[in-house]
C-alpha cells in the first residue's frame, strides 16, 4: 500500500491507483469532467488539477496521476479554485452553452460544475462557432456546438463498445469529435447504435432523438457497470 496525504489527511492507495481514486475512496471530492469511471483517464479538461506540495506545488491532473508514496496533495487552495473557475469560463466561451434551450438543462455536468465552483459570469468573448448539427442518426442527435471535447464518447466507443466510430479530427480550437472520420453519423458503417457515447457524454452534445429541452437524463455510470463485470487484464 502507498501512503499519501490529501488535504492534510493520511490516505492509503493501492499501487497504480490515481490521486483521484485515492481521494474518492477517502470521501474527498475533486471536480472532474473528462474523467469517467470505467474509461481510461485522459487528463485533458484540467478541472481536476491539484497541487503537489512536495513537488514545488506542481499542478497535476488528479485523474491521470498515479498516487505516490509520501505525496502531499492539496485539492482546494484559492489558486486552484480560481484556476478551475477560469477553465470553466473558457469551456463556456468556446462553443454555445445556452442552458435554457438545451436538452440537458438540469442534468448537465458542465452546468453542475459551474454551480459548484461558483462560476456565474464568463469574462471572455464567446466564440459561438456555429457548427452544424448532425441529426442523421435514427436514434441519436449530435450537436457539436455543445461539445466540451472531453473525449468520453471516443473512449466509451473504442474502449467499451469496441466500435471505434468516434474520433478526434482537426486540431487546436478547430478540434471536433467526428463519427467515422467525418460523418454523417447516420451513415456510419461502424456505429452499432449502442448509445454508450450518449450516456457517457457529460453535456447535451450527444442526446437521444426526440427529447425536448431539459428532458435528457443520462446514466454515465453504465460504463463502469459494464467494465466492472469484465475480467481484468
Amino acid at each position: 500500500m502507498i501512503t499519501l496525504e490529501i488535504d492534510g489527511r493520511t490516505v492509503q492507495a493501492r499501487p497504480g491507483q490515481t490521486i483521484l481514486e485515492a481521494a474518492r475512496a477517502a470521501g474527498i471530492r475533486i471536480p472532474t469532467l473528462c474523467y469517467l469511471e470505467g474509461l481510461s483517464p485522459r487528463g485533458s479538461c484540467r478541472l481536476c488539477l491539484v497541487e503537489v506540495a512536495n513537488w514545488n506545488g506542481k499542478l497535476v491532473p488528479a485523474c491521470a496521476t498515479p498516487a505516490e508514496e509520501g505525496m502531499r496533495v492539496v485539492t482546494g487552495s484559492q489558486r486552484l479554485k480560481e484556476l478551475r473557475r477560469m477553465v470553466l469560463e473558457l469551456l463556456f466561451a468556446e462553443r454555445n452553452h445556452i442552458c435554457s434551450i438545451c436538452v440537458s438543462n438540469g442534468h448537465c455536468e458542465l452546468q453542475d460544475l459551474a454551480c459548484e465552483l461558483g462560476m456565474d459570469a464568463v469574462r471572455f468573448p464567446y466564440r459561438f462557432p456555429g457548427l452544424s448539427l448532425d441529426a442523421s442518426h435514427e436514434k441519436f442527435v449530435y450537436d457539436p456546438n455543445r461539445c466540451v471535447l472531453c473525449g468520453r464518447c471516443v473512449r466509451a466507443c473504442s474502449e467499451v463498445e469496441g466500435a471505434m466510430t468516434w474520433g478526434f479530427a482537426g486540431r487546436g480550437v478547430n478540434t471536433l469529435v467526428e463519427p467515422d472520420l467525418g460523418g454523417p453519423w447516420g451513415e456510419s458503417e461502424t456505429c452499432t447504435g449502442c448509445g454508450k457515447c450518449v450516456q457517457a457524454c457529460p453535456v447535451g452534445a450527444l442526446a437521444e432523438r426526440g427529447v425536448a429541452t431539459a428532458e435528457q437524463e443520462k446514466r454515465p455510470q453504465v460504463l463502469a457497470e459494464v467494465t466492472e463485470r469484465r475480467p481484468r487484464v
Partner: protein
Amino acid sequence: MRRLEVLLCSGTACLSSGAQEVKKALLSSLAAHGLAEEVRIVETGCMGPCELGPVMLIYPEGTFYIKVRPQDAEEIVVEHFLKGRPVARLLWREGAPSPQELPFFSRQRKVVLSNCGVIDPERIEEYIAAGGYEALGRALTEMSPEEVIEEIKRSGLRGRGGAGFPTGTKWELVRKAPGGEKYVICNADEGDPGAFMDRAILEGDPHAVLEGMAIAAYAVGAKSGYIYVRAEYPLAIRRLEEAISQARKLGLLGEDILETGFSFNVELRMGAGAFVCGEETALIASIEGRRGEPRPRPPYPAQSGLWGKPTLINNVETFANVRHIIQNGADWFSAIGTETSKGTKVFALAGQVRNTGLVEVPMGITLRELIFDVGGGVPEGRKFKAVQIGGPSGGCLPEGLLDVPVDYESLRGHGAIMGSGGVIVLDDSACMVNVAKFFLEFTAEESCGKCTPCRVGTQTMLSILNRITSGEGTEEDLQRLEELAQLVKSASLCGLGQTAPNPVLSTLRYFRDEYLAHIREGACPAGVCPALIHYRIDPELCRGCDACRRACPTGAISGTPGSPPYRIDQSLCIRCGACQAACPFGAIERLPGRKG
C-alpha cells in the same frame, strides 16, 4: 599529388542557392586546367553563414568565399589555384581571408559542429579519421554502463531539446527502470519555425548522432532505437540512411558491435510535421501509430514510454555531445560554460542582425556578445530593440538585459527560454504587441486541442491581442490577458501550452508602455499596426508630382499636379502605405496614432 582541399558547404541552404552547380563548374574548370588530381572537393555539412551561400573554405590557407556562382569557378581555378591569388570580390570581408579572423567564427566554440563543414558526411572513413567511433569503442570495452552514466552526469550535460533536463540523470532513470526491453529515441522533429540546428548536425555529421545513441543504448540497456525525423528533411534522411548502412557494414551498429556482444539497431521514423509531435509523449504516440497527442506525465517515458517500455528520449544535439564527453572526459566538457549550464549551444541567428545563420557558442556567453560580436550587431542605421530567444515560445528581452548570460536559469529567470536555440533580433521598427501576437498565432494554430487552457486560452489571448492591435483594447483587456497567460502557463497539459504565453508575458513585462500606448493613446509607437497609424504629406517636401494620388487605391489623396501640397483624406485612407512607396521625394511620413 593533393595540394588543395575545397570544403564546399552542402547544407540545405547552400544546396538551394546552387552549391551543386558550383561543384560541377569547379570540376570542369579543374579538369580543363589539369588540376583534377591536385584539388579535392569535399562536400560538407552546414558551415553557418547560410544567407551568404553557397560558401566554401579552401585549405590549407583557409580562404573563405561567399556567394559563389558557377561562373566564378573559372576565375577561382585560374587566379587562386593556379596563380595563388585569392579572388578578392568573393571574400567575405575584404582583407580578411581567414575565417579565424572573423568574429563570426572566432567567438564561436565548435563542439557538436566541429565536423560540420569539415568532413564529408557521406563517408564514414572521414568521420573515423576525425576520431569518430573511438568513444563508442572506449565505452564498450573500457567502461561499464554505470561508468558511462557517471561520466555524463559529471559532465553536466543537459537536454538540448528545450527543457534542459540533466542528461545523465535521465539515462540513470531509464537504466534503473524495471523492465527487460528498453528503447532509445532520438528526437529529430525540430518543429520550431526558423530552427535548423538539428538538421545541420544530421546533414553535416550524422555519425555523431548515431554514435551518441549507441553509447546511450549501452548505458541504459537498450537494443533498439528510433530516430524520429521530420519528413521535410530529405537530405538529413538520406545521409542518416547512408550513415546507418555504412556503420552496419563496419560492425559499428547492428549485432555484436566491435565484437563486444553489445547489439544496437537504429531505424528511422518520419514525422508528419505537426509541431506538437516534437513533444516526447506525442512523438511516442506518433511512432506507435496513434494520434500525435501529448499525455500527462508522470509516468515519464523513462518509466513507461514506447510500447509502455522504459524509453530514453533525447534531442539530436544532446546525442551529438556524447562522444565528445566520453572521448575528452567530463572535466573537459564541464570546463566550458557556467555553473549550471555546461558545454556549448547551437543557435540560429535571424532577424535584424548582420550575420545570420548557425552558430555554436559556449554557454554563458552574454546576449550582447552573441548578437553584437558573433552576429555583427544590427545593420547600419537601425537600432537594437529586443531579442526574442527560444523559438516561438521564447521571450523578448530588452536592451537593458543584453548582459544576461545565455544559460538555462538566467534565460528562464528573465522570462525567456533556451528552447531549441532560435534567436531573432528585433530593431526599432518592430511593434512588440504585434511581435507577441505573431508568435502566439503560431502556437495557437499548433495547439493540439487536447487540453482546455491551451486550446481555448491561446485563442482567447489572441482575440484580446487582436483587439489591442486594432485599437479596441481596454485596460481591463490587459488584465484578462495577463490572467489568461498565467492560466495557460500553469494549467496546460504539455510544454506547448506551458510556454506559449512567454512572448506575451515577456513583452508585458518589458514593453508594457507599448501596450498602453495602443490602448490609451490609440497609437502604435513603432508605426506597425495599421489601425493605429496615419500618413501625412509634408507640405514643405511635396512637389505636387501626383504620384501618390495615382498610387492610392481608395482615392484618399487629392491635389492638382504642379500645385503642392497634396492632401490625404484620413477617413478614406486604409493605411496601406502605397503613397509613401510611390513618392519620389520622401514627402510622406508614417506617424503613430489614428489621425493627424
